[in-house]
């Protein structure tokens, strides 16, 4: 268990170091008047666990169908390694897809489903049986080989679909919302399993999801999509801590955002006038090309804000006073909704590090909050 876990962690920390495997160059796809994918360029590396993340209708599913070959791009080219995939029909593409609905063949047993792709390759009986057996072991479905899909549980169906897609040892596995049909508890376990299987096989995984938690916990890199374009591509940590646009900041995790105006620089920090406080606040300058006088948005994650009950007074340029409006107890966290004296709303979260807190901060309490200069993120408006 321990060694396994270590291996899992090591795999999780592995970053894409392979050669470019998938290259999309200026790919566009229109459906009637709707532009689903808009002049999109993207590189995915060998061995990477890559996530396409975005709200529904952002074009992520279309992008996956373009890769699988079910849709042809109106413009642009798609490469796999050195081969141009653009006009190749789906059955000749060396990548396989795990469908959101699983699309298991209802008239075939689990074993026949997994063998289906191998039979198309005209492999020998022995070879097929061997590889099916190996897949069954990988996804732990040996006990139900002879069942048909309608006799499986949701989790078993999901594994069968995964095994079927992996059986042909594709260069890229496309996963379309692979966990969407599972209940929440199973989803958490399956995330680990997917990650483990990917690490063991070394196959490039490309997952499409609308669930940021899912993408964050599994992917090496995430591409955030909006309106058919990629807004930002980065590792999960980078994406969370350095979102480049307001859309990314709001889509990934919880965040407070306030409009502001840059006043001037002060020892590596920007002085920003915001709606949270009468006096300017100090936000760390991260080298973004910004000009004094420019309108910006200041973003602060709720967990980076410290909070104290009055009469304690927080000092410093980023200290603000307010009143607790609402308290949400989430178990691991408690979420506070504050009404600042300026009238703005600020969300603050605190981990429940001890089991019982004496005199916890409650509704109606006066508090002061503050955050470090480097906790704030400056986003161009």
């Amino acid at each position: 268990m321990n060694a396994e876990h270590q291996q899992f962690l090591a795999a999780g920390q592995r970053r894409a170091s392979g050669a470019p495997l998938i290259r999309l160059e200026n790919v566009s796809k229109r459906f009637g008047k709707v532009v689903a994918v808009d002049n999109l360029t993207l590189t995915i590396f060998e061995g990477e666990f890559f996530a396409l993340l975005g709200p529904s209708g952002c074009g992520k599913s279309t992008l996956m169908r373009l890769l699988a070959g079910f849709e042809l791009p109106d413009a642009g080219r798609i490469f796999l390694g050195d081969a141009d995939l653009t006009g190749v029909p789906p059955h000749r593409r060396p990548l396989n897809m795990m469908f959101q609905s699983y699309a298991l063949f209802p008239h075939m047993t689990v074993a026949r489903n997994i063998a289906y792709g191998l039979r198309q390759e005209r492999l020998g009986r022995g070879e097929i049986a061997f590889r099916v057996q190996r897949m069954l072991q990988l996804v732990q479905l040996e006990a139900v080989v002879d069942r048909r899909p309608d006799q499986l549980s949701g989790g078993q169906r999901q594994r069968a679909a995964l095994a079927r897609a992996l059986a042909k040892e594709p260069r890229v596995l496309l996963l379309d919302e692979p966990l969407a049909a599972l209940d929440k508890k199973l989803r958490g376990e399956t995330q680990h399993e997917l990650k483990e299987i990917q690490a063991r096989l070394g196959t490039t995984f490309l997952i499409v999801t609308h669930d940021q938690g899912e993408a964050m916990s599994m992917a090496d890199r995430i591409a955030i999509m909006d309106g058919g374009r990629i807004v930002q591509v980065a590792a999960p940590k980078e994406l969370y801590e350095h979102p480049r646009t307001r859309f990314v900041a709001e889509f990934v995790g919880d965040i407070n955002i306030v409009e502001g105006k840059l006043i001037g620089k002060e020892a590596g920090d920007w002085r920003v006038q915001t709606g949270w406080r009468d006096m300017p606040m100090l936000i760390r300058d991260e080298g973004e090309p910004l000009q004094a006088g420019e309108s910006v948005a200041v973003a602060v994650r709720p967990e980076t804000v410290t909070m104290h009950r009055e009469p304690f007074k927080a000092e410093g340029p980023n200290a603000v006073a307010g009143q607790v409006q609402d308290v949400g107890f989430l178990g691991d966290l408690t979420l506070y909704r504050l009404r600042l004296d300026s009238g703005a709303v600020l969300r603050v979260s605190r981990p429940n590090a001890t089991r019982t807190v004496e005199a916890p901060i409650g509704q109606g309490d006066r508090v002061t909050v503050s955050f470090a200069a480097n906790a704030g993120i400056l986003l161009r408006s």
Partner: protein
Amino acid sequence: MAVASLRERAGRAIVIGLPYLWLAIFFLLPFLMVLRISLSDPVTAQPPYEPVLRRWTSLAEWREFLLGLDFDNFETLWSDDLYWRAALSSLEIALVSTGALLLLGYPIAYAMARAPERTRPLLVALVILPFWTSFLIRVYAWIAILKPEGLLNAFLLWLGVIAQPLAILNTPNAVYLGIVYAYLPFMILPLYASLERLDPTLIEAAQDLGSTPSKAFWTVTVPLSLPGVVAGALLCFIPIVGEFVIPDLLGGSDTLMIGRTLWSEFFSNRDWPLASAVAVVLLLILVIPIVVYREIEAQRWEAQP
């Protein structure tokens, strides 16, 4: 609680019992009457068969009645090869027509199921549309089309494809044409129902796993539409075997079909008992394959855990 469950059970019994009652009154009872007539002898009387049970009370009457029944009519069916040939010819015509209907109906149903969702109801309506006109009138219309001086021959002559009018009417070809025309909706509709239900992502999955489009069709689409194929085939085959109107109107005197034989025994020869025997045999011919098929299906489903 117990009372409620009793009432519930009574309610369920009524719901299940009603269709059985219906079948008993309108199917089983008439069949028993036909069976009983088939065991009688023809006479020139009203009704035209003997024996008839006149009083239900005396045991002697019953005895006389039962002794009067015999299997003479079935022996006639067996010994006279007219009935054999009619039955075999009916089965042959039904088999060939059902095959032709399948070949024609499957592509149509497939195209309908793949049509844009908005246009599908219209297409289904078009398939059903002929039912708005009487079946008999539609078959008569075929006479007008197929006769030597009819529309088809006039058109072919005008095209210059033929020099002499073709003799189509009153041939087996006309019967096949009429049957395929009349039964096509019964083939298309069940096929369409099963093809329309088929999840298109299954085809995509098959192609994704390396199947060419045609391989995907044969390994996924066809097996999954098999229930529709069986339903359509039974729905066509069974009534075609007993078909009377189409061979009578479009076929020549040499087109032998069991339904026609039955008709002439009943109305021309007024031999009710023999006609009834034909009807009983016809029913058995049709029921046996259905029962066998159902049995195989049931075993297939049970075999899978």
